[in-house]
């Protein structure tokens, strides 16, 4: 091992039936550095992490860790913990039925007994020192997702690991929480911990990282010092082609004009059980608008109320000027509304069903229980959209769960486009998918709008919203606080509105 390095992976190979997930990948982590691991979906980031944490066992290659002679074998998460590798995953990997303190201490330490008092005391100290306001005795399930994520990090921190892996930890955190996390990461870095940081947010990489390793199609592209790799180059390395510049996508529509026509969808005093304040909303034909605000500001809850996904408690809704009742997803669908949900895995895909069945599902439900499509008809529908959206799948019979995240998202998009909606709601359609697909989806949104579809677009990335939307509705603390159009559509005004002008 070289001087100063904590971890070296050499010539790692890993394959799954039909896929070569990693081929001859090298990776080096030095003491006291934050090292970003970048790549598109399917590039092999997750596989590399899982090899390192013992979830998958590598086919070939060697792993060296400081303080251990020779190559170490990591065959299980326990072994990874033993050699000082801790991981915080994107999806919470804690046990919801146990208390916060137990989640921090389970699976660690020596001895057979559990000293509850000691454990709760140490947890309280740890949580206090990190500024996480939960009681150690609280059941984990009673904490919000963001807090659960913080607890997972607290656990990793407390394990005195030398290598800390953060696998997309920021995707469920809001800005202030991200800031806290970064502060924590820098603290750990000072102590000499090496951090592997996996994220999709380029801003965050440039804010906090020292080095970047880029993977593509299971192969190593290279390792770079952060100063030597400007953003544009990073993206081009990840994509493996010169950048089809994202700035090329421009909002061609001349901006939002209130032309006085009857809105396609109009709601007054709409409110649901999910704690949002009643809000008014309208959208016209061919308009692209968006809800923006911090995570947890209620933007998803608003569109869920529009679609009837949550229980609607009040409000009047008109479609094309006619009053309609939308309290269930089925009623929304009948009125030509389509909704692509935020959480793809939980709300979007039907994992074991084929791509074909996933594509026809919504239209099938709309058509009715007693009118199933023939297999040939369904295949025809599926093939059409696979071609149209360039979905990469082995066949229409492939189960959707074996597709990459971006392609799964396209399948769900296809499902809704097939129903020929008048009004399409896209909640975070670009989250967790690769840059190429992101661009595709943004282009598609603009194309659909130019063809007369009304679209509501939600994204955590303000850039995307600015490129696509002609009107932005700003949410703060579960309340609609502003509406931005035309010249107001700049990063600064959005930030100011989100932060709230009246704040001192």
């Amino acid at each position: 091992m070289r001087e100063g390095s904590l971890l070296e992976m050499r010539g790692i190979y890993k394959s799954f039936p039909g896929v070569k997930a990693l081929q001859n990948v090298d990776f080096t982590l030095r003491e006291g550095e934050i090292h970003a691991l970048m790549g598109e979906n399917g590039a092999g980031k997750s596989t590399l992490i899982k090899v390192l944490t013992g979830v998958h066992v590598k086919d070939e290659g060697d792993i060296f860790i400081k303080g251990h002679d020779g190559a170490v074998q990591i065959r299980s998460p326990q072994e990874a913990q033993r050699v000082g590798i801790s991981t915080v995953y994107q999806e919470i990997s804690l046990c919801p039925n146990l208390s916060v303190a137990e989640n921090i201490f389970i699976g660690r330490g020596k001895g057979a007994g559990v000293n509850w008092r000691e454990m709760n005391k140490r947890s309280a100290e740890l949580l206090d020192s990190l500024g996480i306001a939960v009681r150690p005795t609280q059941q984990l399930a009673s904490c919000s997702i963001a807090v659960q994520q913080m607890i997972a990090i607290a656990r990793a921190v407390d394990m005195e690991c030398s290598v800390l892996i953060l696998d997309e930890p920021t995707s469920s955190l809001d800005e202030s929480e991200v800031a806290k996390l970064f502060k924590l990461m820098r603290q750990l870095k000072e102590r000499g911990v090496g951090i592997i940081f996996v994220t999709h947010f380029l801003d965050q990489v440039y804010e906090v990282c020292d080095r970047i390793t880029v993977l593509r199609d299971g192969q190593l592209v290279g390792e770079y010092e952060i100063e030597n790799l400007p953003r544009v180059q990073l993206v081009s390395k990840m994509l493996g082609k010169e950048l089809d510049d994202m700035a090329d996508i421009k909002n061609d529509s001349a901006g939002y004009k209130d032309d006085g026509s009857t809105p396609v969808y109009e709601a007054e005093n709409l409110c649901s059980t999910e704690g949002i304040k009643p809000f008014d909303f309208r959208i016209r034909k061919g308009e692209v608008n968006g809800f923006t605000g911090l995570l947890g500001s209620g933007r998803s809850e608003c569109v869920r109320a529009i679609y009837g996904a949550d229980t609607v408690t009040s409000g009047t809704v008109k479609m094309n000027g006619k009053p309609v009742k939308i309290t269930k997803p089925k009623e929304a669908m009948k009125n030509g509304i389509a909704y692509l949900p935020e959480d793809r895995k939980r709300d979007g895909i039907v994992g074991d069903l084929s791509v074909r069945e996933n594509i026809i599902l919504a239209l099938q439900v709309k058509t009715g229980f007693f009118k199933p499509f023939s297999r040939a008809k369904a295949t025809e529908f599926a093939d059409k959209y696979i071609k149209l959206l360039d979905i990469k799948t082995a066949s229409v019979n492939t189960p959707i769960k074996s597709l990459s995240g971006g392609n799964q998202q396209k399948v769900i998009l296809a499902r809704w486009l097939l129903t020929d909606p008048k009004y399409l709601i896209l909640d975070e359609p670009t989250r967790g998918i690769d840059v190429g697909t992101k661009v595709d989806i943004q282009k598609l949104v603009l194309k659909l709008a130019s063809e007369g579809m009304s679209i509501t677009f939600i994204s955590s990335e303000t850039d995307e919203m600015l490129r696509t939307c002609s009107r932005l509705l700003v949410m703060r603390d579960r309340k609609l606080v502003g509406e931005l159009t035309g010249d107001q559509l700049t990063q600064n005004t959005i930030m100011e509105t989100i932060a709230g002008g009246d704040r001192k």
Partner: protein
Amino acid sequence: MTKRLDPNGGGSVIAGLFRNQIFIPFAALMLLAIFNLVADPSFFAITLNNNSAGYPVLSGQLITIIDNGSELAILAIGMTLVTASSRGQDISVGAAIAISGSVLLRVLCGTDTRPETMQAPIIVGFIVAAAASMAFGAFNGVLVAYFRIQPMVATLILFTAGRSIAAWINNNELPIVPGEEFKYFGGYIPGIPIPTPFIIAILCFILTWLMLKFTNIGLYSQSVGINEQTSRLNGLNPELIKLCTYVILGLCVAVTGLIKVSRLSTINYSVIAKDIEMDAILAVALGGNSLSGGKFNMAASILGAYVIQFLTTTLYKFDVQATALPAYKAVVVIALVVFSAPVVREKISRLAKKLRAPKTAENHA
């Protein structure tokens, strides 16, 4: 857990069959058939004899299998749907059959336990019994769908109480249905040499096929079983669909109850359809369907039911006592599930690769 083997395994017919879900029950059937063929070829003899009532009927071990396996196969239809949509099984079907049979007897015999003639037409009796067992199915369905209780636990209630309720309906009497025509359902219709239960089963299969072909129950129940949230956001009503599958199972139970009661013209509350829930669940599992819900293959389940009956009949033929039967069945079942477990299959294929590897190396050298 139905992980497909090796997706790039070539497109030959055999490989296709091997990958198909129906391969598992089919292979089991073949194994049993070969075993019987070697042990005693007369197992497969089918003869046409006059039965006690003087009609010519087919007889032989195979006929026994399709006769006695029919109840199981009919139940397997409902059980497959329930498994798919609610990610669990109904363990109360045996008890529900007792209730359904008891209701049928109550309607046909009235208050008199030894009536001279039937007190109501059979069809009326069946409709009432079907309504009762569908109501009990709905009870299970409501607990599972609306109260979100795990299916095995929810149906444990009826499992515990069912036979007691059945006894209570007829005040613990054992009424006997008079007349020959009631026996047709569990025996033979004069002039038709095929056992009626099998004919009823075939009718049920056709109805099921039509149901799967002309409604979306298949797609809906699978979708609900795999991802309930997504299903709801796509306009489905997961609770209603689960409830529906339990009601359909209730109907299957009623048909099975009719056959079971007809075989004896009476009922024994504690013995009728005993352990049939276990066999029905095994049929679903043997058909390669995941017991944790989602995708299903109806034909494989039905074939699985007959395989189980095949096994039972084979064991009887080898003079295994009825009470000891479960032990042998258990060994066979374990062997089957071990063989079809994804983990084991993966290990076997890896082992096969290793065995092949040195050979190719030698060839190269």
